[in-house]
């Protein structure tokens, strides 16, 4: 077996272009996918037409809210492009210079301040279906955030007014008298008057007013909390049931490493076995020179060792830029080793069915690329039945298990390392058996 291993290393050394492609291709793909996952979606360019007068404010209770502040909140999720008029904005959308345009009409302040009608902004958009979907989603989210901020300011203003009513002072509203008595002070004042008032109808009336003032002061205090819950009826409390929270960057690293491990392990093993057939050497080897089992062990071992080393180097290299827990290094090694073995075993199974290295590579690519995307589809993102199909496919190939093992090893994510490792060992055995059967058929 040592002679065969030496031969394979010699052939690899002489196939520098192939080796470079084998290492660089998965690394580039891995980095691209990792980059795409770890970065938030880019902010779409949106033209802004602000038709309100500069410095215009909206009166909310005792407060004045700047319209510009609302616009600023609204466009924190997009890349705003200031445009002078609605017509210009429409032209820019039509020309594709911006994905959408938002027109803030001049009467928005008056409508919101009126308290009887809703403020309205106008959105113009264009582009293909994906762009339309992106811009709609971004603007809807931006509007929701801006409305929430606006609603908080209204709550604050209302709370201030309630405080003034309960504790007394000035409402700050145009025309309202200053130094008002607070509701909570009224019962005390009234009781002093009642003490000097003889029994009779007037005294009873004063006592009724005092009881009402007590009740109103107590309940208006509660109404501030009611206002808060109306402004944001449902607050979010999050709890991660299993494992640790995984930062997206760390997960992207794991995805990138798993992809490199898979491509390198599968392609090397598939190519190695297929080359024996392509060179017509397989028959010569298995007629007593080396058993099929030993041949598979050699191919799996070589491919797994190479992919393991490249993936480990990649993980360690990325670890310089992204914060990884080096205390978990032994777990990294275990996950990488088991993943590498499973991918190499899959590669030998593919290679044993292909007539030559080129066919083996094509088949490997056809199988591997969808596996990546299927493994990254989150539960709930597709229909229940389709997700079940995806789960079955992901279960019978090692990518998802390797991804889970690496995520558990590197990020301490759930599921814990044991399950995916056992899964990978099982898949290694399964694909080794399939590869052996394929080799038997190959002659």
């Amino acid at each position, binding site marked *: 077996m040592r*002679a*065969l291993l*030496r*031969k394979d290393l*010699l*052939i690899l050394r*002489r*196939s520098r272009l192939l080796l470079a492609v084998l290492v660089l291709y998965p690394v580039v793909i891995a980095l691209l996918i990792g980059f795409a996952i770890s970065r938030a979606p880019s902010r779409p360019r949106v033209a802004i037409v602000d038709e309100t007068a500069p410095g215009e404010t909206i009166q909310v209770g005792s407060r004045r809210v700047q319209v510009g502040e609302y616009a600023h909140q609204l466009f924190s999720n997009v890349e705003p492009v200031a445009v002078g008029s609605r017509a210009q904005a429409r032209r820019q959308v039509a020309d594709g210079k911006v994905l959408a345009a938002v027109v803030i009409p001049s009467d928005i302040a008056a409508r919101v301040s009126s308290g009887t009608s809703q403020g309205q902004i106008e959105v113009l958009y264009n582009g293909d279906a994906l762009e339309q979907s992106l811009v709609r989603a971004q603007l809807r989210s931006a509007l929701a955030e801006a409305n929430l901020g606006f609603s908080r300011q209204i709550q604050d203003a209302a709370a201030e007014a309630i405080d003034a009513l309960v504790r007394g002072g000035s409402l700050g509203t145009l025309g309202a008298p200053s130094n008002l008595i607070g509701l909570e002070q009224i019962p005390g004042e009234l009781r002093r008057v009642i003490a000097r008032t003889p029994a009779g109808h007037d005294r009873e009336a004063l006592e009724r007013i005092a009881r009402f003032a007590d009740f109103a002061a107590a309940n208006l205090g509660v109404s501030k909390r009611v206002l808060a819950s109306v402004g944001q009826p449902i607050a979010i409390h999050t709890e991660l049931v299993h494992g640790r929270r995984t930062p997206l960057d760390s997960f992207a690293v794991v995805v990138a490493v798993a992809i490199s491990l898979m491509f390198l392990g599968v392609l090397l093993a598939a190519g190695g076995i297929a080359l024996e057939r392509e*060179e*017509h*050497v397989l*028959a*010569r*080897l*298995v*007629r*007593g*020179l*080396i058993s099929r089992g030993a041949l598979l062990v050699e191919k799996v071992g070589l491919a797994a060792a190479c992919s393991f080393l490249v993936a480990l180097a990649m993980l360690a290299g990325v670890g310089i830029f992204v914060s990884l827990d080096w205390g978990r290094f032994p777990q990294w090694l275990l996950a990488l080793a088991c993943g590498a073995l499973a991918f190499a075993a899959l590669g030998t199974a593919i290679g044993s069915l292909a007539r030559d290295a080129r066919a083996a590579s094509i088949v490997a690519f056809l199988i591997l690329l969808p596996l990546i995307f299927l493994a990254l589809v989150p539960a709930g993102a597709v229909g229940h039945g389709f997700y079940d199909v995806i789960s079955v496919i992901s279960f019978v190939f090692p990518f998802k298990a390797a991804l889970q093992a690496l995520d558990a090893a590197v990020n301490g994510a759930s599921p814990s390392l044991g399950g995916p490792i056992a899964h990978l060992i099982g898949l290694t055995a399964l694909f080794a058996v399939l590869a052996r059967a394929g080799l038997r058929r190959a*002659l």
Partner: protein
Amino acid sequence: MSAALSVEALGKRFGDLVALEDVSFELAPGELLGVLGPNGAGKTTLLSAIAGVQPPSSGTVSLAPRQVGWAPQRAALYGKLTVAENLELFARLERVAEPRAAVEAMLEQTGLGARAGEQLARLSGGNRQRVNVAAGLLGDPPVLALDEPSASLDPAQRERLWTFVKELTATGRAVIFSTHNPAEAQRHADRLLVLDGGRLRFDGTSGELLARAGAGETDLEHALVWFLEHEGAGAA
């Protein structure tokens, strides 16, 4: 003299397909035995079974696979390795005691010493076939099985190959080869086997096969066609 190789009632099935049935013959040391027959007759299957590439379904071969040198029709070698590296690899896999010495000896014997450092992919078809045969000889087997050894060679390369093979038989090594070319078999083989439909239909010299076709017949190809029509699988 005892036989270098004895094949007894050899049979090979692939599912329902009978590729070989009840084939028996012996091969003497130093003998050059040609196997003739139409496509699908079972020539390659016979040589593969003798060489241990395909385990027989029935019957016996007197030698273990590693005691039979084997050179398949297409060179079973690595194009990226040099001639010497290919031979050394197979010498090590054959567990030859002194692999490098065996390679040196084989390079000298095949006249490939000057090409030892060349990558196999850059050699001519003839030289590649010589390395292919040389790889089969590394374990110093008493019997060499050659599957259509001259199929892809030009006349000059064929001539050099047969000279080399005859040098091997001259040293007592028995050689069995398959061919589609009756003229080649007539010219080089000491004895012929004719297979058809997986069965051995003829075992004798080319002169005996010519005689079967009728007095005065000198063209072995013509005689073979006649023989297969009258005594082959389709004759009954």
